[in-house]
């Protein structure tokens, strides 16, 4: 059963949110989702770029007003 985990990286600066996401991806199972909450504007663009490059799956990016929610699914 796929699970969803959340990383609250609000307040962290680049590349902190991305590095936290990657560390978490090492720990979860294929098919699991990870949501990154970030106040860093670059995260909403950098994470999809990284995901496309390394072959995971973007679930979505959402502007929550005072932060972004970026959800990634582990694909490999």
């Amino acid at each position: 059963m796929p699970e969803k985990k959340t990383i609250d990286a609000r307040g962290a600066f680049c590349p902190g949110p991305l590095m936290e996401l990657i560390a978490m991806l090492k720990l979860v199972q294929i098919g699991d989702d990870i949501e990154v909450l970030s106040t860093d504007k670059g995260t909403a663009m950098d994470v999809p770029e990284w995901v496309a490059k390394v072959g995971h799956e973007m679930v979505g990016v959402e502007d929550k007003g005072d932060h972004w929610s970026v959800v990634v699914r582990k694909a490999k």
Partner: protein
Amino acid sequence: MIIALSSPAMKDHAMSTRPLFILVCSHEHEKIQMAAMMAAVAAVSETPVRVFVSMGAIYAFQKDLSDDERYQGGRFSDVLKDKKAPDAMALFEQGKTLGDMTIHACSMALDVLGWQEGDLVADLFDGALGLTKYLSDAEQGQLVTL
């Protein structure tokens, strides 16, 4: 040797796996920080990273320093400290843990300072290396100097 690439996708893949060589010479905090950010992000993006630390930059990699002792110089340094930007040494460590990254100290820089590898941040370096060997290796990839 010339390798035929049959599709744009294969060309993109081949380009993306060329190593990134980062030559760090400046002692300035903002350049050490930029080197660490580039190294960490490239390494976790499946690009091999080869870092070479020389000249004044070696001071920032001395073991047992406080943050104020380690990170000095450059107009952006105070901002990085005030905003608690990710620690550069921690970023190098994360890049090594999560990706393919090596860090070598310039053998000349160690020699002129009378330092040994044990004087550097523990568990970060893969040894000392000469510039000639590093530049020879760098012909295989892209070289960035900071």
